[in-house]
Every structure is written in C-alpha cells, then in structure tokens.
C-alpha cells in the first residue's frame, strides 16, 4: 500500500493589515510608494490573502489604484 500520510505543513500565520496598524483613514492615489507593493509585476492588484489586508482597506486601495492608472502613474497592464 502506498503511504497515506501527508507531510505535516504548519498553517501559515495570518499577516496583520499594514494599513490598520497605522490607522490609515484614506488611501491616496497620488501615494506611489504605498501603492507599489500591492501591485504585481504585470500591474494587477494583489490578492488580499497574499498581502494580509482587511476588506475595508482593500476597497480603498482598489479605487486608489484605478485612479492612479487613469492618471498614468500606474500601468493598466505591463
């Protein structure tokens, strides 16, 4: 019989929301240094499960990134 045991992989720790720690009330589209880490190489917005952001801030991020894309600060698609 083949080995039925799965290798033990400890659950990845949930990251804390980096915006909640700083009590950020608004995410500004002009703030390129804060927006850049949340966008991948091709210009897509990163998954919330990867970055650990809460839903409230992710929605703010989304509008900020879309505004920045319209104004030419970020790419729609690389």
């Amino acid at each position, binding site marked *: 019989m083949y080995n039925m045991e799965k290798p033990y992989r400890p659950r990845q720790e949930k990251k804390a929301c980096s915006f909640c720690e700083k009590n950020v*009330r*608004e995410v*500004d589209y*002009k*703030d*390129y*240094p804060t927006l850049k880490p949340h966008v991948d190489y091709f*210009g897509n917005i990163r998954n919330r499960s990867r970055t650990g952001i809460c839903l409230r801030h992710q929605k703010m991020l989304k509008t900020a990134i879309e*505004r920045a*894309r*319209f*104004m*030419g*600060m*970020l*790419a*729609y698609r690389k």
Partner: protein
Amino acid sequence: MVLLEEAAEEEARLYEFAILYPSSLSQKEEQEVLRDVTTLIEEAGGKFRERDVWSTRGLAYPICGHREGKFLILHYTIDPARVREVDQQLRIMKGVLRHLVLMVRSAEPMVKFSERYDLWLKEEDTKDRTQKTEREEHVRRQIADRARRQANRPQKKIEHTEVKEEQITEQIQKIITDKDIDV
C-alpha cells in the same frame, strides 16, 4: 426657513483638481496652461487653498504620444453646482492631457506627495547601491577565505620513483613472449 435657503446658496466644498500636462512644453506654454487653469477655477467662484507642482515623472504608458508628464494638484473651495462647468472646460482645454476632480473629505492639511516621491526615489537608489556593494564584498571575502584555506593546507608529497631502462625492456619482453596475450 430663510436661513436654510441662504445656507444652501452659499455652500462651498473643498475640491481637489489633479491635472496632467506634457513635460515637453516650453516655459511660456507651461505658464499659459497654469494660468488658464487657475483663471478658469477662479471665474467659477473658487477660492484658492493649496497648490502642489510635481517635477517631471515618467508615465506608465504613453498618453497622447507623451511618455513623461508633469502633475499639478490644486485645492479649491467651490460651489458644487459650478464644478461641472470647470470639469467640462478642462476636458477641452489645450495642454491638459488628463484631469481628475475629487472631493476632499478629510479636514487635515494636504500632504505634498511630490517631496515624498523624491525622497522615496533617493532611498531606492541608495538601497540598490548598498545591495550591490554588499554582494561584491561577500564574493571578495569568499575568494579570500578560499585562498587562505588552500595556503594553510599541508601539501601532499608525490613520490617519484626512478625507473631504469633495463626494467622497461624486461617488462616488454615478458609481454611479447607471453603466449596468452595476442600482440
């Protein structure tokens, strides 16, 4: 009731106007564009609050053939009924590539992102440089350590045994005369 009507007429909210214009304009044309925009907003009843001019920045994609642009961000208090006029005029205005009109909800003073962006750029430069120098140093250290270890290692002596000609001829004779080997 009269008070409410008066209050509704004189309402003025804080709006943010973000404008993108090409960086390849001459100084005169640039000043014209800035003047046109400010006069347009002031004619619509806007009161100046703040202003932030950004240096040339590379755009993520070419807009109207331009790959670099300059941003201008203005904060004005205007009657919300007149904002639409400003928006319509900005769409047609010469020299303005993109514009955004937003309402500013927070009462905090405006953050000047131009300075922040320049600082961030400098930090990234220094980060890259320090990483490169660290990598070079690491490689140099590795090479030095390896050389030191080789120098300290005791060298093995290879023994040379002198072979005489007579011994070689004997061996060859043996191989030739041996019947089992085919030569």
